[in-house]
């Protein structure tokens, strides 16, 4: 049976924790709104890009001279996994969900006898994958110093991926991130970015129109594809940022509620034992008086 003093300390400490989780929840809510706005604002570019690509690719799918980024190397032996996670924890199952999906993917590939290389974006993913697949992590990119997630960050990641592709270091590249559905639902997602899958149906209704190309179709495609990949990465990072804040918000909401429950339980226990003690003392006094 803990003493009254112990209980009191316990309650004070849980209250302090509750204050912190509450504050974190509110910070996450504010950041979430900003992250969502950023994701929202980036959507037109991604949509337009998909549209233009759709228009353009409809003509070159299946052709032998299509860019290598689109048709791939013709092999699927070496896989590069770009695992995007958060820089910090305390956000519920956010990081572990992404890592779990990546790990399943890795195990499946390894079982098929493929070679796997990993590039991590965000510290938590590297930490989680280090134990099982440490040797396969070829590079980690940390987002620690970055205040606002802008296109340059994504372009940096894209440049690394493309350099490796040019050097023939992998055949297939897959991006892992968490799609933001709502505050309580973030869906870990795997998306193949090399060879680039063009959604030919994304082209607008005007796809049938006869386009003029300057300089030429293949040249434009050659320019467009790397950017499209950068946009995919950018979108993934933005979605990830929103998901992270959403996950943290609901995790901290839960924590705050749990702390509340705990305080209630502890206060009840505290009051009971306080009363029991008073009763005990009274009985002692009364029986002492009776004995006289």
């Amino acid at each position: 049976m803990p003493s009254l003093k112990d209980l009191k300390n316990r309650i004070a400490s849980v209250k302090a924790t509750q204050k912190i989780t509450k504050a974190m929840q509110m910070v996450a809510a504010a950041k979430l709104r900003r992250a969502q706005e950023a994701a929202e604002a980036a959507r037109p570019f991604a949509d337009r890009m998909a549209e233009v690509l759709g228009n353009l690719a409809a003509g070159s799918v299946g052709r032998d001279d299509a860019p290598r980024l689109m048709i791939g190397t013709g092999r699927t032996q070496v896989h590069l996994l770009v695992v995007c996670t958060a820089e910090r924890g305390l956000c519920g199952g956010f990081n572990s969900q992404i890592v779990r999906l990546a790990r399943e993917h890795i195990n499946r590939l390894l079982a098929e006898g493929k070679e796997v290389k990993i590039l991590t974006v965000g510290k938590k993913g590297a930490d989680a994958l280090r134990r099982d697949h440490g040797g396969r992590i070829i590079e980690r990119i940390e987002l620690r110093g970055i205040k606002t997630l802008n296109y340059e960050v994504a372009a940096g990641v894209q440049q690394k991926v493309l350099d490796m592709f040019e050097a023939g270091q992998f055949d297939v590249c897959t991006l892992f991130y968490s799609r933001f559905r709502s505050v309580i639902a973030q869906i870990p997602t795997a998306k193949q970015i090399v060879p680039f899958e063009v959604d030919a149906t994304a082209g607008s209704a005007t796809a049938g129109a006869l386009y003029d190309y300057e300089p030429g179709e293949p040249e434009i495609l050659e320019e467009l594809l790397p950017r499209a990949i950068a946009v995919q990465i950018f979108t993934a990072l933005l979605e990830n940022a929103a998901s992270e804040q959403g996950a943290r918000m609901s995790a901290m909401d839960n924590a705050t509620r749990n702390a509340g429950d705990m305080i209630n339980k502890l206060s009840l226990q505290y009051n009971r034992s306080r009363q029991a003690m008073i009763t005990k003392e009274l009985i002692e006094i009364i029986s002492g008086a009776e004995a006289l």
Partner: protein
Amino acid sequence: MATFKFELVSPERLVLSTEVDQVDLPGVDGDFGVLANHSPFLTTLRAGVVTVRTGSDTTRIFIRGGFADVSPTGLTVLAEKAVPVADLKADQIAAEIRNAEEDVTDAKTPDARQRAEQKLAQLRDVADALRAA
């Protein structure tokens, strides 16, 4: 004068979406203007200044490379970076040029070097043009 829909988007946001009379763009193979009912046309853009005319208003926007998609429904410009010339500081351009210079020195393949040099030349042109204006 007939107007058409013009959208300028950068990866971070939709910069501009309005009805306009005429847009002048820096294409890779030379500058060109777009009026309403232009035939469908897709091109890459070099770094330069986009001039948008609506009535008697002219807006000038600096872009750092991108694509222009002229479709029957309007003109869409996908720019990697878009800054209105009025907000553009001289040191910003200088920073871009420095960046491009670094790219040239960092370039590993001759192909990449050529691309970086091209970009640098374009940026210098823009800087000159802006200083003159």
